[in-house]
């Protein structure tokens, strides 16, 4: 399988990429690591007129500690987050989520920004970013704006990123959570999560429970009212609209969300065990 015919342009740098986005908008599809986009193009589930390859935009590959946040460039590949001293110190949940992505080959190419732009409701990194209350920087040739990670995706594969914008940076607020946990339930053979949960202090986020990754506000409210783990976890699927698909039925996902949230709340310490 190969993608349908396409035009290809490699951006020299961020300035050129943004100028092209301003001039051509959605006629150009940004290509980051391509680990989700290329399979979709090969299967002809997706089509592009022109790929705008961001592979040379190396200025967007970094992890930096700033005053009140940890900044991660959008084109930082997953493997860079594993063993990075700043990530380990300030946002270890990100490393655990990155380690859950695909396999080493996919992690060598896939990027944080690509995962966000792809807006898969079962994605690992975006789930961790929602739990961490991270902010996504969207830049255009004329300026930049920030969007909470939880509000970036509006539907599977659809984000609020405008045709002239690119995801350029992720900001994880510091200090990070004192207690956190990342649990995913997936078939072992390279499957995406059926359901995954990330807990960061009082925030609980779920993947695989609807068209977008979302906060489990019912659980958070119960915990804020002093409820125990069992009572709070019972509200995990409140307001969720989980899909019935080849991976699992909606009813099973609801069940899984309650079980995983209970486990995550019970265990949530500051050490990483799963899924490494």
């Amino acid at each position, binding site marked *: 399988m190969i993608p349908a*015919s396409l035009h290809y*342009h490699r951006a020299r740098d961020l300035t050129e990429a943004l100028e092209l986005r301003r001039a051509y908008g959605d006629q150009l599809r940004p290509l980051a690591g391509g680990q989700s986009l290329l*399979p979709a193009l090969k299967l002809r589930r997706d089509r592009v007129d022109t790929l*705008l390859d961001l592979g040379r935009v190396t200025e967007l590959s970094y992890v930096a500690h700033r005053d009140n946040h940890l900044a991660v460039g959008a084109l930082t590949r997953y493997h860079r987050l594993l063993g990075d001293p700043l990530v380990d110190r300030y946002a270890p949940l990100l490393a655990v989520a990155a380690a859950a992505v695909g396999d*080493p*080959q996919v992690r060598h*190419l896939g990027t944080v920004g690509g995962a966000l732009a792809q807006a898969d409701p079962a994605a690992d990194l975006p789930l961790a970013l929602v739990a961490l209350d991270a902010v996504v920087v969207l830049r255009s040739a004329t300026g930049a704006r920030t969007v909470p990670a939880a509000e970036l995706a509006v539907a599977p594969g659809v984000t609020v990123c405008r045709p002239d914008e690119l995801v350029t940076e992720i900001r994880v607020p510091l200090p990070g959570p004192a207690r956190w946990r990342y649990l995913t339930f997936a078939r072992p053979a390279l499957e995406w999560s059926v359901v995954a949960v990330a807990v960061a202090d009082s925030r609980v986020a779920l993947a695989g429970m609807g068209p977008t990754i979302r906060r489990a506000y019912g659980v958070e409210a119960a915990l804020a009212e002093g409820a125990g783990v069992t009572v709070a976890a019972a509200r995990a699927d409140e307001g969720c609209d989980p899909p019935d698909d080849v991976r699992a039925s909606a009813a099973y996902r609801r069940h899984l969300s309650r079980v995983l949230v209970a486990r995550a709340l019970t265990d949530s310490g500051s050490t990483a065990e799963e899924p490494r």
Partner: protein
Amino acid sequence: MSIDARPGTTTVAVTATVNGRPESRRVPSRTLLVHLLRDELGLTAATVGCDTTSCGACTVLLDGRSVKSCTLLAAQADGADIRTAEGLADGDRLHPVQEAFAEHHALQCGFCTPGMVLAVVSLLQENPGPLTEHDVRHALKGNLCRCTGYHNIVRAVLALDGARRAG
């Protein structure tokens, strides 16, 4: 900066170092790296198995790291250093990972072997160890052996890991 012409081309020139040799080809923009290697350069060690980013039979090293060459455009590899299984041995002398695979009978039909070997080369470069069996199995989750010959592959990797620390 003004943009006059529509950006993008339907063919693209790809220049890369492949197994230490400079190579240059013009290919359709949609060409996948595995097809550049196999069809243009005649390097057929990287095989197309699942063609869906799962099986890892097409694994090659891109600037030293394992990638699935069925899930990378040839254009994206422009300027890169690419190594395939053909480029591992030094003349008649096998690469240590190849040696270990032979010694531990870590292959059956051989279809997955080139990708498996390169995934191991990448793992050993990235991870100083010591590696547990669990580490090795997880690091090789992107490489499927449909003969299910995993035990000996894992043994070969653990032996390599032990040997590099003993040595």
